[in-house]
């Protein structure tokens, strides 16, 4: 029987601006799939732009597959998913929360940065 494990990489986390998730070891897994569940968001049409990143050592990172960017737009629904293939031993997400006014840490009328509150799952299978 194949092994599997779903790791909750972020739980109930409010993300703003540029972020990277904690390093996660997944060398044992042949399959990996990210799930992002949006719980809440703030700003003018906020969304997350994220890339899967890989590493040989958990310290130094580059984009997987020349940086295919995923757009996690709460307007498209609460749950988003995409696979990661050929990732070696380590996985993380690197991304930015943006909204309509500008990329990065744009601010809404109340002066608060655009934000998304999310659960990020990494589903792994041998």
């Amino acid at each position: 029987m194949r092994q599997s494990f779903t790791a909750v990489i972020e739980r109930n986390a409010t993300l703003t601006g540029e972020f990277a998730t904690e390093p996660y070891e997944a060398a044992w897994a042949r399959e990996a799939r990210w799930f992002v569940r949006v719980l809440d968001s703030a700003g003018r049409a906020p969304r997350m732009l994220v890339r899967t990143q890989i590493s040989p050592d958990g310290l130094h990172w580059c984009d997987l597959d020349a940086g295919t960017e995923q757009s996690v737009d709460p307007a498209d629904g609460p749950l988003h998913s995409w696979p990661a293939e050929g990732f070696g031993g380590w996985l993380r997400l690197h991304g930015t929360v943006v909204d309509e006014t500008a990329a990065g840490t744009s601010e809404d009328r109340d002066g608060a940065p655009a934000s998304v509150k999310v659960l990020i799952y990494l589903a792994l299978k041998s």
Partner: protein
Amino acid sequence: MTTAPHPDPRLLDPKLAKFNPLRRVLAHDDFNTGTHGWIELIGNHDQHGDLDTVDAHMSDFRPPQLSSCNFFDVGTHGAMSGTYALKVATRPVTGHTGVAIRRLTMSGRGRVQFETYFAYKAEAASADNGAATAAGGGTWDANNHPSEQQFGALTVATDICDGVRYHNVVRYQNTDLDHTVQHRWMYPTVPEPTPREHFEGKVKLPRTADFTAPDPADWQQFGERQELCFNEVPTKVNWHYLRWVIDTSTRSNVELQVNDVVHDMRDVPVPPYDEEYGSLQNLLNFYVSVRTHTDVRNFLYLDSVLISVDW
């Protein structure tokens, strides 16, 4: 020529032969074959699944990892047996704690023994993580490495309820909060703050509070100081034997063996909760935790675990 049968045929299995189990083996967790029920601890949430109701200091104990003990200088170190160990990791945030828990119940009362082979590390430095200049680091002398003083503490503990709820706890305090080397085995003199106590307005702790016992004054040393084998740099993994015996018939500690030292724990108290808890009859949980005292990730690795009982 005849050969006498082995006194304990279980120990003919090389995977078990490195342990010293009591009569009945409840669990043998070889992390080359999955996580065996070890999972992140989280505080309780409400009937809606609203994660905002989880206590802040019990909301981010990090998912355990099946680690090949992979490092920047040597690549895959591997575990004591096979490739994979269970890794519990902190965030690079002073006071952050990583916790993995295993959940059982008791079908009897008596001695319970937790054995593991473990290793502990602080994260190696990189330009991004800034570990070389983070608090606790010092000067490299080609023997002792500054990262050894960037490892805070590791803990092995229980959560048990037979009508009375209590925690047996042993903690290896590598450094104090000022990064001074301690090498002490410690126990808490108070029971762990619970989500219900928060719900009742009795306690509210910040995100990086020490969830086992938040006040450093509530920790006491037992036994002699003991130096372990960090082995100079943050990328060498040496496995340590740990054998811890408690007695659930008397809600007490018995002894802790770590490598060649046996600490008598018969006089080390186990503080019970004064109040009763429902929904927990025969609860028998074990958790391991790792706590950083600086802005550097700390890691606890378990090669394998064996839990045995005498009932």
